[in-house]
């Protein structure tokens, strides 16, 4: 009995290992990039999807008229060239005559017009519509020319058009109502297969007008646990991976066969205050909080130092030296004084909300901030929420404070008009009305001279930091980890994976 039991156990284990080993040998063809990410796309409609995880997939399939390069300069995509009229009220594009949809049809001006009209139609429900409100009419003088007639000069419009939310889709597909179920774009890859939250199979688009794709295709696996992604990298199951969690990403360099790329991103970590709620209504209290938070310490603890302390403007072209901003050096004494002056010498209690796992460091950030603010007598209660509950609460502005990771844009106006202009869509989230801020935003929007724009937004940033409706913390990195034989990836601060078009998989 004893023997047979031991035997059973041994043979079971042996069987398991044998089976396991059988699975290990499965490899894809050399020229196909095996990729993994932890969050999958949530839908295929480029106009409607706003989740970053969706956009980075759709960017490989669809194309906008123009796109941003790694330095956030606007470069041609479907459009070969473009120009603003003198008065800044018309914007015309010349399309690449070679550009073709994956169904074989040429990308025509009519497709562009149809795409933007769809985007603008309220029944589409496209959130990005808000960025294109200045478009009045669209003319298509010929097959390769598109002219946008604007209600007022709108410099940030062009930057907004780099978003995949402004992708050009086939007019015929709009007609057929199949946008969102079939992905037919003009981009470098075709989406052959999509099993949500499981995997994507992409093949290179040989007809792509933008150049030659170096890999045959990309197989994406969705591995929700990032430690599993790391394990898969170590065992060479995947060639390339996106990582979010700095705790995991920092382990990659320990592995001789792997390389880790860090790219500073535009998205910013922020502690949002709600200036409509007492005592955050007091400028002194907000400033005290700003002074009491040690941004570098939060970064060092929650993100293991993986990032850069930053002011509100995160795009290199506009960013200023954060040390020049209000209270970016921690000053507890000043904070205490500010509190006392505002009548809160004994501090107060407040609740801070944070989303579970989004970003993965949210809980840690909240805890460090909690301990820092405790030093000036502010008692924070952390309330973690499932992402959708958080979003719901956030949109209602129903919080004292919120730990957030907000999206950055290449243009300061598109990035912040929703919060800090009087008509901003998310004004009720920011809950802070400031004439100076609104004024500077409006000036920045119509100013076409880059140098003057820079000055305007520098003033905007300085004022914003000083009135402290929010406490900007830092920007983190986006991480890509790859095997040593994977070369040529060009990362972008927008987090775009468009750089995969130049990747080669070596032997």
């Amino acid at each position, binding site marked *: 009995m004893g023997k047979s039991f031991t035997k059973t156990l041994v043979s079971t284990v042996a069987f398991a290992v044998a089976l396991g080993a059988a699975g290990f040998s499965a490899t894809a063809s050399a020229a196909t990039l095996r990729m993994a990410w932890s969050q999958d796309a949530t839908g295929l409609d480029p106009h409607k999807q706003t989740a970053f995880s969706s956009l980075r997939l759709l960017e490989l399939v669809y194309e906008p008229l123009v796109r941003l390069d790694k330095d956030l300069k606007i470069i041609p995509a479907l459009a070969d060239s473009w120009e603003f009229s003198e008065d800044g009220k018309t914007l015309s594009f010349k399309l690449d005559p070679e550009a073709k949809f994956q169904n074989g049809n040429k990308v025509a001006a009519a497709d562009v017009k149809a795409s933007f009209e769809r985007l603008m139609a309220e029944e589409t429900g496209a959130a990005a519509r808000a960025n294109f409100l200045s478009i009045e009419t669209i003319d298509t003088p010929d097959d390769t020319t598109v002219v946008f007639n604007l209600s007022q000069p709108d410099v940030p419009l062009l930057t907004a058009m780099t978003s995949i939310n402004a992708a050009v889709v086939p007019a015929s597909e709009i007609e057929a109502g199949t946008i969102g179920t079939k992905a037919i774009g003009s981009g470098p890859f075709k989406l052959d297969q999509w099993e949500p939250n499981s995997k994507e199979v992409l093949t290179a688009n040989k007809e792509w007008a933008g150049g030659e794709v170096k890999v045959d295709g990309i197989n994406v696996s969705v591995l929700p646990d990032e430690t599993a992604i790391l394990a898969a990298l170590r065992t060479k199951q995947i060639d390339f991976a996106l990582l979010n969690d700095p705790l995991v990403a920092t382990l990659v360099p320990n592995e001789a066969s792997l390389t880790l790329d860090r790219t500073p991103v535009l998205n910013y970590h922020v502690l949002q205050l709600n200036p409509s709620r007492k005592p955050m209504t007091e400028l002194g209290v907000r400033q005290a909080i700003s002074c009491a938070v040690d941004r570098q310490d939060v970064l*060092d*603890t*929650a993100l293991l130092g993986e990032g850069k302390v930053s002011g509100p403007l995160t795009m290199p072209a506009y960013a200023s030296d954060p040390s020049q901003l209000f209270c970016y050096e921690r000053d507890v004494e000043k904070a205490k004084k500010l509190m006392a002056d505002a009548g809160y010498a004994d501090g107060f209690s407040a609740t801070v909300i944070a989303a579970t796992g989004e970003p993965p460091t949210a809980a840690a950030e909240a805890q460090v901030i909690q301990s820092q603010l405790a030093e000036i007598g502010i008692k924070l209660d*952390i*309330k973690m929420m*499932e992402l959708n509950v958080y979003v719901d609460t956030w949109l209602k502005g129903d919080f004292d404070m919120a730990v957030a990771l907000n999206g950055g844009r290449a243009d300061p106006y598109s990035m912040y008009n929703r919060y800090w202009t009087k008509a901003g869509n998310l004004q009720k989230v920011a809950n802070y009305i400031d004439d100076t801020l609104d004024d500077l935003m409006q000036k920045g929007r119509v100013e076409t001279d880059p140098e003057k724009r820079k000055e305007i937004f520098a003033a905007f940033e300085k004022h914003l930091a000083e009135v402290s409706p929010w406490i900007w913390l830092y920007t983190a990195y986006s991480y890509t980890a790859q095997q040593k034989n994977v070369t040529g990836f060009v990362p972008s601060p927008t987090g775009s994976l468009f750089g995969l078009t130049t990747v080669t998989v070596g032997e």
Partner: protein
Amino acid sequence: MGIVKAIFAHPSGRIGGTIVGLYILIAFLGMAGITPHDPLMQFRVDRLHAPNAAYWMGTDLFGRDVASRLMVGIGQSFVVAFASVALAATAGTVLGLAAAWFGKGWDGLIMRVMDVLLAFPAILLALLIIAVVGPGTWTSVMAIAIVYTPIFTRVVRGPALSLKTRDFVDAARTFGSSRHYILTRHLMLNLVAPLTVQVTLALAWGLLTEAGLSFLGLGTQPPASSLGLMLSDSRNLMETAPWLLVFPGLAIMIGILGFNLLGDALRDILDPKTRRAVA
């Protein structure tokens, strides 16, 4: 206190009883704030310190003392486990007794409702409850309690049905004893034994479930600590700071082991079936 003596006379009861006793002591110390360090104090210069003389079990990402957090965490996990099991046992007892005693339609109704709860995937049920109410200690208590209520209802209903036909209940009826008297004195008192066993085992389950919920980010909320939360926080630091996984992991394993051993011992002691005479 014959039962304590009996537990300590039982070989696995001795181990289980000692473990559980020790844990309860630790939990009380933790709750009372008698810990080596302040469990919330972030010694940020000492982040991710390996175990040493000052920090017996090392420090975590924030430089908090793991040993102190473990003590508080055991307390927190115990509170969740005890409270949820107590709720479930109470609800289950009331429902199970009602089903057994009133029979017929009531039995059918109660048991069908329990069937609904049982058929509803447990983790999803917990998830939905937590999503509706928002995560937190008392939400997880409620969620775990609701998941366990049908189990306790079944545990009570079966023996209650058989107790109902026992001679001493018949005897009580011949005296004309009141329903209340029969339910409390004859049924409840005799259900104490099977319930005790089930409660002990459910406590072990409660600890595991709390850990599972915390792993999904739905249990105890930071900066408070619980065994499950400490474990789940440690998973991405498993390689950098293994002590963050090892100590809470061991703590939860030994704790559950303790409850299981104690439950087994109680089963042996309280269940007349295993006391069967030889030959």
